[in-house]
């Protein structure tokens, strides 16, 4: 329970459904004062109090679990390292993968709990019964691997988008394995955010009107570039155009993301007067390449470390929709899996595809799997 409205209502619904629910708030800051100064985020003292009060109102026990060391190593340090490599990480995704549905889940299972329930806006839907004729659309008929075991009856569910498209969080959960999902509960997936807020008010939960959190929770002031500069120090390099001509200098390539337009710090406009965007980041030489918008067009993407939670590992090429960043649109694509990688060919070009982000494969609204983008290009 973060202290926000979603996890409070999720806990209330789980308790009302008859589950024996225990509220857990995660203490994620190694230095107890450092994350607490910001007005937002998930680690302030006020958030801990809000979570505790929600648990009181629901009538469930409540504890704070100290996950600060794990969070720092697996999320904060990973975030910094990824930027240093020229990638653009998604820390929420990493937190789900390594903390909420790994460290917390493992501890919970060992302590006798059955599942981790969160306020994520996503659903776990039954997988369609495998069709006898699997020839035309291979992956659609692949069931989830029976992670719950044959004895308990395989739990054939797969991660699916929330009914509220604006709040859907299936993207940041798509990194979870079928095993992890079999121990997850998302009671909010069938509700819109408005419905959740209304229900919170009806249940007397004081957090009903609390603003949504948007920023990276461990960067209280929202200044990601400042945080990275503090962590990585000054590492100046050139800003060049596609032909290698030097346009200016920067004090750290980690301050840039592919597709970024603002804050390039170039005093001379492009010769043609058109806006310039970050096209690529080369961390070893610290070179940031910029160019016109159309140079951002991407058709071919390589991704690694695939996780297939919504189907068996595909044996050959398949059509699907692929989402390439949080709250991004889903693009029709053909995917060619091979070993520890997936090659994605988009039907239409997409822009601003940043290495380090996840490529999430959807069948309609259902998640088939995900992989981490390692390279994007026009062909």
């Amino acid at each position: 329970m973060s202290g926000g409205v979603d996890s409070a209502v999720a806990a209330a619904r789980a308790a009302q459904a008859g589950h024996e629910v225990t509220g857990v708030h995660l203490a994620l800051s190694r230095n107890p004062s450092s994350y607490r100064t910001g007005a937002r985020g998930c680690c302030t003292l006020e958030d801990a109090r809000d979570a505790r009060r929600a648990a009181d109102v629901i009538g469930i026990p409540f504890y704070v679990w100290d996950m600060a060391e794990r969070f720092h190593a697996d999320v904060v340090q990973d975030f910094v390292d990824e930027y240093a490599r020229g990638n653009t990480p998604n820390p929420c995704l990493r937190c789900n993968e390594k903390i909420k549905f790994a460290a917390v889940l493992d501890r919970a299972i060992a302590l006798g709990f059955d599942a981790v329930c969160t306020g994520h806006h996503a659903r776990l839907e039954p997988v369609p019964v495998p069709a006898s004729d699997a020839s035309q659309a291979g992956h659609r008929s692949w069931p989830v691997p029976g992670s719950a075991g044959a004895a308990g009856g395989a739990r054939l569910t797969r991660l699916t988008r929330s009914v509220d498209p604006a709040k859907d969080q299936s993207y940041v959960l798509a990194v979870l394995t079928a095993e992890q999902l079999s121990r997850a509960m998302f009671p909010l997936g069938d509700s819109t955010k408005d419905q959740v807020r209304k229900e919170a008010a009806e249940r007397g939960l004081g957090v009903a009107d609390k603003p949504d959190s948007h920023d990276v929770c461990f960067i209280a002031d929202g200044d990601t570039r400042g945080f990275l500069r503090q962590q990585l120090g000054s590492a100046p390099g050139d800003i060049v155009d596609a032909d290698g001509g030097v346009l200016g200098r920067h004090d750290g390539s980690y301050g840039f993301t592919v597709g970024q337009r603002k804050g390039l710090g170039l005093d001379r406009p492009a010769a043609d007067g058109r806006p310039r965007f970050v096209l690529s980041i080369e961390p070893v030489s610290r070179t940031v390449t910029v160019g016109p918008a159309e140079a951002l067009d991407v058709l071919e993407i390589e991704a690694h470390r695939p996780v297939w939670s919504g189907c068996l590992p595909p044996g050959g090429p398949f059509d699907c929709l692929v989402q390439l960043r949080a709250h991004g649109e889903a693009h029709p694509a053909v995917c060619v899996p091979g070993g520890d990688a997936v090659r994605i060919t988009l039907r239409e070009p997409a822009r601003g595809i940043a290495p380090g982000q996840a490529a999430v494969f959807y069948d309609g609204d259902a998640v088939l799997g995900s992989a981490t983008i390692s390279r994007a290009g026009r062909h």
Partner: protein
Amino acid sequence: MSNVDATGYDPVPGGRPAPGGQVYLDHAATTPMLPEALEAMIEELAQLGNPSSLHNPGRRARRVVEESRELIAEAYGARPSEVVFTSGGTEADNLAIKGLYWARRAADPARRRVLAAATEHHAVLDSVRWLSEHEDAEAGWVPVDARGVVSVPALAEVISADPASVAVISVMWANNEVGTVQPIAELAGLAAEHQIPFHSDAVQAAGQLPVSLAGTGATALTITAHKIGGPVGVGALLLAKGVEPVPVLHGGGQERDVRSGTLDVPAIRAFAVAVQVARQRSGDEAKRVAALRDDLVAQVTAAVPDAILNGAPPGPGRLPGNAHFSFPGCEGDALLMLLDAKGIACSTGSACTAGVAQPSHVLLAMGADEARARGSLRFSLGHSSVQADVDALGAVIGEVVERARRAAR
């Protein structure tokens, strides 16, 4: 909201009531109010009068305060004028440490050292730290042995570095975590040889052991009501005659010009009643509680053979109601949660920061490593404890430790 069950305990507000009723093994945190104290407090809450007022209602309130003061003074070897009422133990500790430091430093600027046991409660520990960070004091931590005892030679050694520079010494009567009882009379005697004011936080000891200001020759003792069956929010500094610490709270000077604030008459009356009842029962009650504690230790060590009893062995060197264990391979907060789910309330004993238990400074000072300090639990018994409480713990502690060990792997 809350529904008090047959045992008289409110089943954890906002929590599942335990199937067999609540088992309360956390009397060192707070102990239930004695019925006599509760009755007196309720009666007094309906009364009118500020004890500082000169009219009839004021005189009536003043009489209640002074009668209570006399009862408390008598119970703890003090004169009535040596009882300074406070809002509780923390305020009394702050007044003793800061007030005596300021007074001594004003009289002799060379007296800047504040000596305290490494295992003090945070009310003393953090007062000393604050003085060293903001008031030019020099903190001197007196080491303890593996049982948590401050020996006379250990204190003598710290003093001897420069006796003329010591402003005040504070050593707790009995430790709140591991229950170790200090040789207070000897330590106070040593301080007296050097004409150094000696304070002792007797919050945990006062309900369980004979505690006396005159009997030890201490300068000041801290006591609080809610550890002996009185209400939360009232305590006292027993302050030897003629000792004038600099006040921490300024205002009407109601208490010997050393402490200001309108006196809480109902709480003070209930405090005195609790002291009186506890005193009448003292010897037999301590034996009864110690016997329960001994059985608790036996049951826990039978179920978990590698459990380590921290602190002094059961006997005169340990509070009768205290049992404190380290469970190798466990996290204390996991044990606490699992026991809580079974309706058994206990404590990790150490301070929390935003709900996260910190490794106990007491155990670390006693030489334990961080893992042992983290994997510890305190069970504390009191006046309402019965054999069934101990048996309930004994029945589940083995499986709970087993499970917590799996979770820590």
